[in-house]
């Protein structure tokens, strides 16, 4: 919401739930700190980069300490370095908060880097093509992207996607 500051964007779910502004702001500040945007609380969205806007959205989503986090291609519009960085931050958050994250993406490499478990759906009408766990350790860092086991997993899941290469 462009007319609200970063902090006020993050407090939205709590305001809607009836929290007092003071409580809402302290919880929101906590989450902004988690996504490393705490100093930007007074800025407006138009002053932020794409990646920072996305992190604000994530912070907003986390304020209610949800059990389930739904993310629909959140990093698709970002440049690669930012995307990589946010992927690692997401893993960090997940490891800290331990909620279930349902992440939709068209990028196999992203899916493999992020997920414990990947579900591949076909085109319309969506049918389950594959549902398997990812054989990678919990601790995933930048070096992993060029490691052999990562590439193997990517190959494994890529072959599950129909040959036509059509996105889901």
């Amino acid at each position, binding site marked *: *919401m462009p*007319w*609200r500051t970063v902090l006020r964007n993050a407090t*939205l779910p709590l*305001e*809607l739930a009836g929290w007092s502004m003071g409580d809402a702001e302290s919880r929101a500040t906590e989450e902004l700190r988690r996504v490393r945007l705490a100093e930007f609380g007074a800025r*407006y*969205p*138009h002053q932020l980069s794409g990646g920072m806007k996305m992190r604000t959205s994530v912070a907003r989503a986390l304020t209610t300490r949800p059990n389930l986090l739904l993310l629909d291609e959140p990093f698709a519009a970002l440049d690669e370095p930012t995307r990589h960085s946010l992927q690692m931050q997401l893993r960090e958050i997940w490891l800290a908060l331990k909620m279930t994250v349902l992440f939709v993406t068209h990028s196999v490499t992203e899916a493999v880097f992020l997920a414990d478990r990947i579900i591949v759906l076909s085109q319309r009408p969506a049918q389950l093509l594959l549902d398997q766990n990812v054989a990678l350790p919990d601790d995933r860092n930048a070096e992993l992207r060029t490691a052999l086991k990562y590439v193997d997993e990517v190959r494994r899941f890529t072959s599950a996607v129909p040959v036509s290469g059509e996105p889901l």
Partner: protein
Amino acid sequence: MTLKTRLASWLPPLLPLILSLGAAEFAVRMAWVPSYLIPAPSEVLQSLLDDRSELTMAAWATLSSALAGLLLSFVTGTFFAITLSSSDLARRAFYPYAVFFQTVPIISIAPLLVIWFGFGQPTVIASAAIVSVFPIIASTLLGLKSTEPSLLDLFTLYTASRRQTLWMLKIPFALPQIFSGLRIASGLAVVGAIVGEFIGGGGLGSVVDAARTQQRIDRVFAAVLISSLLGVVLVGAVNFISALSLGSWHSSERKS
């Protein structure tokens, strides 16, 4: 800014004005154009100076009426638009009547206004309000209906009530449109006030009326000039408020 760039921005719009005023003055002085058709700019200026106290008082009266009318149409128009935006049925039932406010010829219902509101400011304010209300309704309604769907989804996701969605999402989102409507309405409010004054008396409208009766075209032009200025003042005020509220976040207010 160098002198050159200053000139480059000021001169082009000023030049046609100077040329046409000069041509008009010359034509009237040489009696090519009779002065009862177009007054010489110098006569209009003289008229402005001679009658400045009367014109100032009249201008204040018209401005206050126009402002009051604008406020009235803003409050009722916004309320109407909010109501219509929340119910499809209400919108289909009542919006056509809102259009009526746009098309009714104010000069012909002004005598009715006098019968209902009496002579003087009440009629003038009513006239200003009637003429200026439709742009506010139309723009506000458009703004409320154009809320970005992803944000609406966000609010639905957090089970926001209708009231919360209206006040925390739809209205802030519609502000640029609302100000756009207000901008148009403010010019119309001045027009409405002057028409109201033709029938109800007072302000610049009565100056124009009397000047017309006396065939004093220069006075008519002087009064018309002042009333255009009033419109500029009102629009400027709206722009100022718009800049304050939207300045921090809306692309229309940012210079870059």
